[in-house]
């Protein structure tokens, strides 16, 4: 499809602006004046509408396709959540920061305060900041809180421990806060090797970052012991909430012994992913870490009014301009109060049921390196298919031709030819059965006609793309006009 810049026609106009009702001002000084206007496309409104509408049709999405992308929790995004966010679209974030302005922003402040309270109850933490703008941003914020906590105690410590099955963001976030990373291998039972962990623990470890259930979809049977060991060395436990969808109402990380947690609202709490964002990554902490939370914080007075706390010398400062991705939070808040207690418990039960069903129906067809009851997702390996020259990526591309967004492939890194399937709770058995049939078909094709898989996909606007050329040429901006 042509680029929007290639459709430009000199002199064509799109959206019209209101006429000016003030006199034209004196021009800017010449050295400040733009010499030539930015070369934006010149199009009619219909040109723009048609261009982006047709672009959208070149996407798979939850609304058009089953999207079992492991670790990403691509559940249905209720339409009413979009309406909910629209109710707050006109509120300026500076209003509560003005003198006398808090009382003009009580709706927004109340929502933030209530959401924080709900998330604290769901996760078993004492207080929540909504400021972090995505999951990884929450991780970084959480580790900054850890650093501030230890700095206040006199030694910020040196290391952060992560299992080798962790999301890449865990070590990357800890490194952004200046920690050295210690990686612990996975034991045959599918989680961080307990013995190796014990040996790695010492007084210089600031935090242990765990995802539970982990990226293999397994609940770590030793999780309590890991928390206890960490605490006995005066280290804090960090909970990566990416997989919280599996345990709503079943387990609260705070009860288990975790001290800091981030929650991906765009995963567990049903807000859309937007083609890669915006997300939202609120961070919950236990009491000892509350003084270090970013500012501003929101408090509720005895009369039910909400106010901003803007000063606190122990705070790590600020990780975003205002209160976080507010529009995303309205959606998550709406999701939580709409589903309610029973609804949220059902989310996890049905997510776990769907994942176990897919696992049971496919385990005769694909290798299952960690063969045990899974939680919300299961991780297969295409190593059996590899013997016929078929990789996980080939199976993924075949699925595209059949109208399915592929599962996550090649992650977690510890599983060779990984295929990570997360159906989520919003899919029906019927949808799962159709997907299972196609996955079985792919396994059979790998045996009988592997070449057929290597060509896929053939039904999309493009076939497989040359990634090496993209990296070599680095054409990231259209240069001609």
């Amino acid at each position, binding site marked *: 499809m042509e680029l929007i810049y290639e459709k430009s026609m000199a002199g064509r*106009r799109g959206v019209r*602006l209101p006429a*000016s*009702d*003030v006199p034209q001002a004196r021009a800017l000084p010449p050295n400040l004046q*733009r010499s030539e206007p*930015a*070369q*934006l*496309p010149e199009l009619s*409104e219909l040109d723009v509408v048609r261009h*982006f509408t047709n*672009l959208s049709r070149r996407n*798979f999405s*939850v609304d058009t396709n089953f999207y079992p*992308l492991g670790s990403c929790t*691509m559940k249905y995004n209720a339409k*009413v959540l979009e309406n909910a966010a629209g*109710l*707050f679209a006109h*509120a*300026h974030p*500076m209003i509560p920061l003005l003198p*006398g*302005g808090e009382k003009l922003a009580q*709706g*927004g402040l109340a929502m933030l305060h209530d959401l924080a309270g709900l998330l604290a*109850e769901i996760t078993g933490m004492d207080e929540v900041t909504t400021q972090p703008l*995505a*999951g*990884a*941003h929450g991780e970084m914020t959480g580790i900054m809180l850890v650093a501030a906590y230890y700095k206040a105690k006199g030694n910020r410590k040196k290391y952060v421990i992560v299992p080798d099955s962790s999301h890449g*963001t865990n070590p990357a976030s800890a*490194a*952004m806060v*200046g920690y050295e990373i210690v990686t612990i291998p996975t034991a045959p039972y599918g989680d961080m090797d307990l013995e190796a962990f014990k040996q790695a623990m010492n007084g210089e470890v600031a935090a242990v970052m765990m995802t539970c259930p982990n990226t293999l979809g397994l609940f770590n049977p030793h999780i309590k012991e890991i928390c206890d060991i960490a605490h006995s060395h005066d280290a804090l436990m960090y909970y990566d909430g990416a997989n919280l969808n599996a345990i709503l109402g079943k387990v609260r990380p705070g009860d288990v012994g975790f001290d800091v947690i981030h929650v991906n609202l765009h995963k567990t709490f049903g807000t859309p992913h937007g083609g890669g964002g915006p997300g939202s990554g609120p961070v919950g902490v236990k009491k000892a870490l509350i003084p270090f939370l970013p500012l501003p914080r929101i408090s509720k007075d005895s009369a039910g009014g909400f106010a901003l706390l803007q000063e606190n010398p122990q705070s790590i*400062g600020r*990780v975003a*301009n205002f209160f976080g*991705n507010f529009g995303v939070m309205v959606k998550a808040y709406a999701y939580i*109060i709409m589903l*309610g207690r029973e609804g*949220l418990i059902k*989310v996890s*039960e*049905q997510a776990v*049921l769907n994942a176990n*069903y897919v*696992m049971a129906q496919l385990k005769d067809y694909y290798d299952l390196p960690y063969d045990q*009851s899974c*939680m919300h997702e299961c991780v297969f390996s295409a190593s059996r298919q590899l013997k016929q020259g078929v990789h996980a990526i080939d199976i993924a591309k075949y699925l595209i031709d059949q109208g399915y967004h592929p599962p996550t492939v090649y992650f977690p890194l510890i599983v060779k030819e990984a295929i990570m399937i997360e159906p989520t709770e919003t899919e*029906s*058995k019927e949808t799962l059965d159709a997907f299972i049939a196609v996955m079985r078909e792919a396994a059979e094709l790998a045996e009988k006609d592997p070449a057929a898989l290597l060509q896929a996909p053939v039904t*999309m606007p493009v*076939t497989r*793309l*040359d990634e090496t050329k*993209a990296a070599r*040429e680095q054409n990231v*901006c259209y240069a001609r006009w």
Partner: protein
Amino acid sequence: MSAADYCPNTQAEIREMLAAIGVNSVEELFGPIPQALRAKSFDLPEGMSEFELLQRLAELAGKNAQKLSSFIGGGYYDHLIPAVVDHLASRAEFYTAYTPYQPECSQGTLQGLYEYQTAICRLTGMAVANASLYDGGTALAEAAMMALRITGRNRLVIDGGISPFSRQIVKTYLANLAVEFVEIDQQQGVTDRVALLAALTDQTAAILVQNPNFFGSLDDLSDIAEEAHGKGALLIASVYPIALGLVQSPASMGADIVVGDGQSLGNPLSFGGPSFGFIATRKEYIRNLPGRIIGETVDKTGRRGFVLTLQAREQHIKRHKATSNICSNQSLCALRGVIFLSSLGKDGLVELARLNYDKSEYAKEKLGAIKGVAVLNIAATFNEFTLALPQDAAALVEKLLQQGIAAGVPLGSYYQELAHCLVVTVTEKRSREEIDALATAMEVALWN
């Protein structure tokens, strides 16, 4: 009414699925979780239908002030949003997709973001841009970290005219790394050049400035860029994209890394988010950029297509050695940005910038003519300017808020010595009538 429930499996289906798995109950599937670790509490309200939900949220939203005549900015701006932006960004194929890891079935997102990157490059004059960061403040922090990596140095010179929020974010990001800051005070709303250049040494990684700055002042950064480059340092400029319709591009002033907040490009105020941050730089620094980058390539038959590229910089490959920890960015908001810019087009953006400038100049003259009030900025301004008042600005703002006018941002909370100063923002949405009403109300409040 009963609570919303998006789980479709029927009881009969659930029984069949349990049988296929070989367990008797859903609860059995939670067997791996020891009883001792089960939730001690899950005290949440009962659910509700979507109809009750909307009623309740409308009530909550109603507790925000509904009709304010707003002259506040502070990094977030009340601009017009063409109807096409909401409609096109509401295409579910865009907003219910994930990061485009599988390019063949994600060409819509990928091409849209490539077009977004192109728009950012054309606005800023830079050669390369990424597919978005979280917001303007975090983009400035990422740019600072990028400059530290590129130069291998550990000193930053930060201009005091940068938004206090953004400065705080930069400091919070870098608090745990061995980085030294020198913060330069502003004078009469512009950079104290002598102090800024005096702070520049051959250990400086970058000078960070904002243009227009928090006071609204515009600056020709060319000489600062030249001095910085002479010492082997980079110039990082945070810019306001709407202003670039009129104001010289940061690239032609010599900036090496350009960042900013994309809220004003088609994203609603929404109490502070989501918006997006943009970052653009010189071609030679592309491998130092944080976050996703979309690149053009071809498929096996030679057709043009787009992919995530240079992924070896990113956390999912490089883990702790990545250029940044960022994973999710603000894709949909960036997409809104390119739809916004495309629907306005080349001349539309210039007109929009002109409207902002003209209205702001009109207001500046009107307000500056009030007895005892002076304009602080000695430099030209775009759509914000700073007034020096004969009294505490906070008190005036509070008084006018009660009359339904948000007169501006008083500076006392951010610059102690400027408690009598007020930053006034005038976008294209403010009518002459509203500006006149502000002038009258201000005069009355000050002198009656």
